[in-house]
Every structure is written in C-alpha cells, then in structure tokens.
C-alpha cells in the first residue's frame, strides 16, 4: 500500500482584486505553493453576481496544501481580513503522497 500523510487543504474564495494579497500571505507564511481556479458566479449576503469578469469584480478560488502548522499560520494571518475583504475560507484534512513537499 502507498504511504500517505495527512496535510491540510485550504480553499479561499476571493475577489479577483484580492487574489494577489491572498497569495502573498500564503507565500509569507512559508507554504510551498498554491493554485488558482476560476469561478463563474455565486450568491451570498450581498446578493447574486455573474458575468463580472469584464468589470474585474469576479472571484477566484485559491487552493493550497499545507502542513498543520502552516495552515494554522495562514488561518491566523487571514482571519483579521476575512470579513473586511469578503474572503470565504474552508479547510479540511486530506491525504497526500510525498508529504515532505508540503
């Protein structure tokens, strides 16, 4: 059987304009990488949005895999701006192969 180790997967939904800020914080915390996925529409307390790529007010999903400590550090670093910057953060445990990379 393949040996796997447990790491945290953190996903942050962020405005296009905030992605740079989020990924810089990921870098600063010392996490080795991240990946950005496009998002096409959604609804929240502020109502529904769609077709906002032209206006630059669309969103992206930033995904990063990190060790428990790094993920704690990231959550801590992001917590103060979650509400003001409209970020949505979820995280959970995942199994990865080659755990030394994260």
């Amino acid at each position, binding site marked *: 059987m393949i040996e796997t180790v447990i790491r945290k997967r953190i996903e942050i939904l962020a405005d296009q304009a*905030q992605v740079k800020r989020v990924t810089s914080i990921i870098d600063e915390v010392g996490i080795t990488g991240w990946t950005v996925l496009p998002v096409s529409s959604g609804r929240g307390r*502020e*109502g529904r949005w769609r*077709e906002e*790529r*032209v*206006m*630059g007010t*669309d969103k992206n999903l930033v995904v990063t895999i990190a060790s428990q400590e790094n993920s704690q550090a990231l959550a801590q670093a992001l917590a103060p701006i979650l509400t003001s910057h409209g970020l949505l953060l979820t995280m959970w445990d995942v199994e990865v192969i080659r755990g030394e990379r994260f």
Partner: protein
Amino acid sequence: METMGIQALTSPVILFFVLGLLAAFARSDLAIPEAIAKGMSLYLMAAIGLKGGIEVAESGLDGTVLAALAAGIGAGFVMPIYAYWVLKGFGRLSRINAGAVAAHYGSISVVTFVTAVEIYTIQGNPPQGYMVAVMASMESPAILAGLLLARGLGSEEGQSRKELAHEVLLNPSVVLLLGAFIIGMIAGPEGFADVKPFFDGLFKGILCLFLLDMGLIAARRILDARSLTWRLVAIAIVLPLVNGAIGTVLGVSIGLDTGSAAALGVLCASASYIAVPAAMRLALPEADPGIYLTMSLSITFPFNVLLNIGLIGALAATLTGAGAVTP
C-alpha cells in the same frame, strides 16, 4: 433636436443595447462569453486610443488641448466631492459606500464616450481626437478623491498606498488607452492604413455586440439588485444630468468646438464600470458592489446612452450656436 434623438435611436448600436435590455428583462438566457466581452472591451479601448492618436498626428495640437486636459482632470477631482455629500446625505449611504460611488461618478465610461462620438459624428459634430487623451486622464483622479473621502487623509498603510498608486497610474484601461493613443501618434495615418480594416472597419459592429452584452448585464443586475433605493436611483439620474451640463458649459467656456465640448460633458456625465469597480474591490473591499455597480451600470449607463448623450449634444449645440447637421 427631436429628429436627431430619434435618428440615434434607430442606429444599430443603440438598438442592440435595447435588445440586450429587453432580453434580460424577459429573463432570456442569452449571454455572451465573458472572454469575448472582455476582448471586445480591450478592442474598443485600443481602437479609440489609436484613432485619437492618429487624428492628433494629423491635426497637431493647439492650446485648447491643455485647457481640455486641465478641465477634465479638475472635474475628476471635484465632481466626487459634491457627489459624496449628496450620496451620504440624500442617498443615506455609509461613508465607505458614498466614497466608492462618488469615485465612479467622477471617473468615466469608455463605451459611453465611444457611443457619444458615434452619435455626434453622425450629427456632423465629431469631437477632436485629443478628447481620447482627456478621457484617459480622467480615469484615475476620481479614484484618489473617492478614497480620500471614504477613508480620510493618511489612513492608508504603506502597503496599500503603494498598491493604490499602482492601480491609479497603471490601471489596465489607462495603460491601453494612452498606449494606443501614443502608438497612433507615432504611427500616423500611413502606419495606420494597414490596420485600419481591423481597428476602424470593425469598430461599429463590435460596438453593437458589446452594447448587446452591456444591455444584458445592466438589466440582469437590476433584477438581482437588493440594495437599491429610490433615492439612489434618483441620484444615478440627476448626477449625470448635472455633471453633463457642467462639463459641457466648462468645455464651451474654454473654447472647445461643439463636438468636443459635448464629449467633455459626456465624460463628466458618465460613470465608470470597469476601471473604478476593480480599483474599489482592491482598495475599498468593504464597499458594496451591489450599490456602486448597479448605479453606474444599470441606471446611469442606459440613461446616458439612451437619453443624456442626446441632451448634452443639444446643449452644446445651443451654447456654441452650432446647428447640428442632419446627415
């Protein structure tokens, strides 16, 4: 004047916009892919920039250009101030939201300008090429003014201030408009000849499809809007009326020709829906796009395209005594 208004309303450019509005209000699923819409928006900026630069390369620049630039930039700083007080007082917005909306109304909408140029050209009063440079220079001052109003002096930390300066000076719209303008000035009419079928021939057709999309998006935003009050709707109509009149009078008073004075009026009347929303998302993320985008895109933009451009043109013609030529 009436007949001219009606003429403009039978132009395909305006009709496609109306089709978009109607389709979205009827809840049709018609939609243009976002990459295409974004591509058309970049095309329109590159093309209008180029054309402005080439006209300037042909006609040269005279003293009125500097006056027009100063008027535009000045208006970009001043308009947000009174807009802010109206939005906070009569509009009952929070400081943050009032500042964000004010920035939109102080800045400009490229497509409103482009549509106005088409209409004024049909009416025989084409604005001067340098008005494109005036437009580019009016994109950013209002962003600064709006942020100062929302946050107060000195509130920004170093990091944000750098980001902000970057956003204001190197905003994609400003870079593309000014860049293409300068390319047009360097390349001149001969250099332009080869690319004319693309940047000139297709211009109106692409504007049609882009306005179709704008109509769809503007109407859908209204249908999804939650935060819009009648007070905000009223402001989104009165502000462009007032700003348009002020800009036109300003333009005439500094000696611009009929078309250019009207174009300055349109720039003042128009509200940004690309450059400023992106800047606000970055610098004022707490502000509610449900307010600022819906006001600028769903109310002011259609109002300007369908009515106010015509009114401003009529005002400019009256003030300069220039009868509009019916083509």
